[in-house]
C-alpha cells in the first residue's frame, strides 16, 4: 500500500532522459506487490530530476557570484558528506552490492534533508535579482528529495537489512547571523556544489541498481 501510494504520487515531469513507465498498470496487474523494477525505475526518474535541478541551481548561483567568490570557494572535500566512503571509479561502483548501493544512496539523501532547509532559508534572504527563481528551485528540490526519500524507504524494505542501514552524517550549521552577504552567498554556492555531486552519486547508484534488477528487460539500460 505504501509503495502504491508512493508510486501514485504527483507525477514528475517526464524527463526526456527516462521513459515513463505505466506504473499504474503494473499495480493493477499485481495487486499487492509492486515489482522492484518499477520502483527502481520510478526512483531513478526522480533522482535524475533531482540532479538536473541541482545543476541548474548551481549554475544560476555561479552566474551571480562575484569573481572573488570563486577563488575562495571551499573545496568540495569540505562537504559534510565527504566522510561517507563512496566509490571513486566504475570498477569500485560495480563491485558494490545492491544493498550497499541503496544504503549509500539513502544515506546521502538523508544527509541533505537538513541542509536543504538551510539552503532554502538562505536563498529567500538573498539580495538577489533572481531570488524568486532560486527560491522556487530550492523549493522544488526539497519536494523531490522528500519524495525520493520515501520511495527509497519503501525500496529498502524489500532489499534486506543492509539496505536499511543509513550512515549518519552530521551537518554543522554555520553561524548565519554573522555572515555578510558575500559570505552567505559563497556558502550557499558551496553547499549547492556539494549537493550537486551527491545527487549525481545517488542517481548513478540507482541507475546501476535499475539495470541490475531488470535483467529481463534490457531496454531499461
Amino acid at each position, binding site marked *: 500500500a505504501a509503495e502504491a501510494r508512493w508510486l501514485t504520487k504527483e507525477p514528475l515531469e517526464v524527463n526526456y532522459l527516462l521513459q515513463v513507465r505505466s506504473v499504474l498498470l503494473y499495480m493493477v496487474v499485481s495487486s499487492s506487490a509492486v515489482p522492484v523494477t518499477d520502483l527502481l525505475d520510478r526512483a531513478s526518474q526522480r533522482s535524475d530530476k533531482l540532479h538536473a535541478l541541482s545543476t541548474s541551481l548551481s549554475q544560476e548561483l555561479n552566474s551571480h557570484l562575484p569573481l572573488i567568490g570563486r577563488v575562495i570557494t571551499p573545496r568540495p*572535500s569540505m562537504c559534510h558528506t565527504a566522510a561517507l566512503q563512496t566509490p571513486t571509479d566504475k570498477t569500485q561502483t560495480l563491485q558494490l552490492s545492491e544493498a550497499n548501493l541503496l544504503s549509500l544512496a539513502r544515506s546521502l539523501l538523508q544527509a541533505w534533508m537538513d541542509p536543504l532547509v538551510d539552503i532554502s532559508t538562505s536563498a529567500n534572504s538573498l539580495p538577489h535579482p533572481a531570488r524568486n527563481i532560486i527560491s522556487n528551485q530550492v523549493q522544488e528540490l526539497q519536494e523531490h528529495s522528500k519524495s525520493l526519500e520515501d520511495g527509497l524507504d519503501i525500496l529498502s524494505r524489500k532489499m534486506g537489512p543492509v539496505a536499511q542501514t543509513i550512515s549518519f552524517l552530521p551537518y554543522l550549521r554555520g553561524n548565519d547571523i554573522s555572515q555578510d552577504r558575500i559570505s552567505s552567498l559563497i556558502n550557499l554556492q558551496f553547499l549547492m556544489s556539494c549537493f550537486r*555531486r551527491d545527487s*549525481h552519486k545517488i542517481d548513478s547508484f540507482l541507475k546501476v541498481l535499475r539495470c*541490475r534488477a531488470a535483467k529481463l528487460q534490457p*531496454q531499461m*539500460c
Partner: protein
Amino acid sequence: MKEVMEEAVLLFLLLVIYTPDAQGTRYSPPGKPELTRCRSPEKETFTCWWKPGSDGGLPTTHALYYRKENSDTIYECSDYHTAGENSCFFNKNDTSIWVNYNITVVASNALGSTFSDPVDIDVVYIVKPNPPEKVTVTVMELKEWPFLRVSWEPPHKADTRSGWITLIYELRVKLEGDDEWEMHLAGQQKLFNIFSLRSGGTYHVQVRCKPDHGFWSEWSSTSHIEIPDYLHREKSMWILIAVFSAFIFLILTWSLHMSSHSLKHCILPPVPGPKIKGFDKQLLKNGKSEDLLRVLVVSDFPPTTPSNYEDMLVEYLEVYVPQEQEVLLEESKDLHDSCLKFEGSTSDNDSGRVSCDSHTLLMDKCGEAKEEGRQTDQEDSTTEAEAQGQQKDWDQDTLMYANGDILSPEKSSGRVKTWPSVFSPLPQYTLSLPDQTSSLEMAKQHCYSDSLFCPGSTSSYLTHLGNNDNETLGPGSWEICLSNRQPYSHIPQMQTCQQVRSHSDVNISTIARKQEPAGLPLPFFRPTAYVEVQRFDEEDMVVLQSIVSDHGFHEGFPQMLQQEDYSKVKGVDSNNMLLLQTEAMKEDGDGCRCQDQVTNGVTESSCTLSISTTPHKPTAHIHTVVSTQDEMAQPASGYVDTATIFTLPTY
C-alpha cells in the same frame, strides 16, 4: 683610464655581438597556454587539450600537472600522445570520478616557463560519448506506404549494459538537396521508424547520443537510402486535386445559380406589368380570386361622371402562341420577368397604352416593354395588306404579349390565362368576332377609335398567333380584341380584329356577332360586345359583365346592355378551343349572341371572351383560366365561364 676604455670597448663589443639584429627575432619566455577542454567519452577515462601561447621564439615544451582534491600531491600527465597534439590522456588508473581535478598546463622554454590558469573539473560532468555505431537504414513496406527503419548501436566504449552510462539518442533525416534536417528524439531506444517520406528521393540519416547528464556526441556518418518510386502516392494527390476542383466548381455553379435571378434581371429586364386601379397584386398571389375580383368591382362603375381619361385606358393584348405551343399568358407573378418586348407601343408602364397600329405591336421574345414606342398614328392607314405583309414577320417571331404582362413561352405553366378585361373605369370593351371566313391571317388591328385616345388609346387585344396555317381559328387560336373608347365619343368604334392563326391550345370562339353599327363601312367589321370581368369566382371562373354605355352607343344591343351579363368561358373543347358564353339574360340574346364560332367544325355560338388587362396597374393581373372542357355550354345559358384550369401541352 686605459682600462676603463678597454672595458667600454669590450662591453660595446659584447653588446654588438649579443644584441640581436634590428631585423632578428626576440626571444622571450613562452606565452601563457590555455586549457581549452577536457572530455570523457565513457566516464572512465578523459582527455584534456590546451592551446599553447606564443613560444617566444624558442623551442617550448608543455607539461600538464594536476592535483586531486583531497591530496596535495601533484602529478604530471603521463600520456601526451594518445590524444594528439597538445593533449593529455588520463587512463583508467589515473581517472577518479566524483573527484575534483585541478589541472594546470605549463609552457617552458629556455627563457622561462609560463603557467596556465588552473581548471577544476569533475569527470562525471564532462562526459561526451562517441557517436552511435552501426547505423543501418532500411526501407520497410507497410501496405504500400513505405517507411524508413533506422537502427544503431551505442558506441562500443560506453558501458550501457551495466547501467554505468545511460544514453539517449537523436536522429535527423533530410532529403538529398534539402537544407534543413528533420529531427527526431528517440529516447533510450535503438530503433526508430520514419514515416514522413516522399517517394523517389534519397534520404540522409544521422544519429547521435547523449548521456543523462552530459554533452551530445558528434553526428554519426551519414547513411544514404533511396526510396523507390510509388505511383499511388502521386495518384492520391491527383485525386485530392480533382476532388478539390470539383468542389470549387460546385460552389461556382451554385453561386451562379443563386445569382441567376439578378443576372437575368440585368440581362433581360422585366417588362412592367399592367396597373389596374384598385388591384392588389398581393391579393392575387394569395389566390383568393373572389377577393380579387371584388376589389375590381368598383362601386362607381360604370362611371357616372367622366373620370380621367387616363383611367380609361385599356390595352390591347396580343397573344401569340408559337408553334411550339407556347403559353399564352403568364402568371402575374412573372410580371417582372417578362421576356417580351413591347415594341412600338406607346403605352407606358402604367397605362399600357398601345397604339392601334398593329405592326407596332410586334413583340420580341426578349425585350423590354418600350415605353415610348412608335407613335401609332397609323391605324387609320393600316390596311389589310399591311397586315398580311407583316404576317410572315409575325409568324416567325411574334410572341404573345399582354400589356405589361409577362409572357414567356418558356415559362409555360401549363395554363392559359386570359387577361380579364379592364374593369372599373373602362366602360367599354369591344369584342370582335373573328371573321371566320377570312383566312387566318395575322390580325391587324385596325383601330378606328372614335376617341381621341385612339392613337394612344389603350386597346389591347389578345391575339393568339399560331404558326399553323389553318384557315380557321383552329385549335388554340383565339383572338381577343379590346378597345376602349370614349363614352362620349360618338364615333363608332370600329375594330377589326382579324382572327389570327390558330393555335392548338386555345380556341376562343368568337363572340356573338353584333349588329354592325350603322354607317360603318368597314369591311372587317366585327360585332362587338362589351363585357367586363366582374369577378373571379372560386372555380376560376371569370364572370364577364357586359357594360352598359351611358350614351347608348350600343344601340344595337339594347337588351344586352340592360342588365349585367355574365360572360364566361364555357370551357375548352377537345380542340382546345375556348368556348365562351354570354349570359342569356336577354330575350334575344342578341347582345352577346355568338355566331360563327370559330372552332373546328363547331357551330355553336359562343362569345369570344375578350379579356385584357387594364393598363392602370402594372401589377394587377387578372387572368382567367380557360378550361379545356369538352362540353359546350348551351348557348341559351348565356354563361361563358371559365370552368377549370386546363393544362396546356408542354411548351
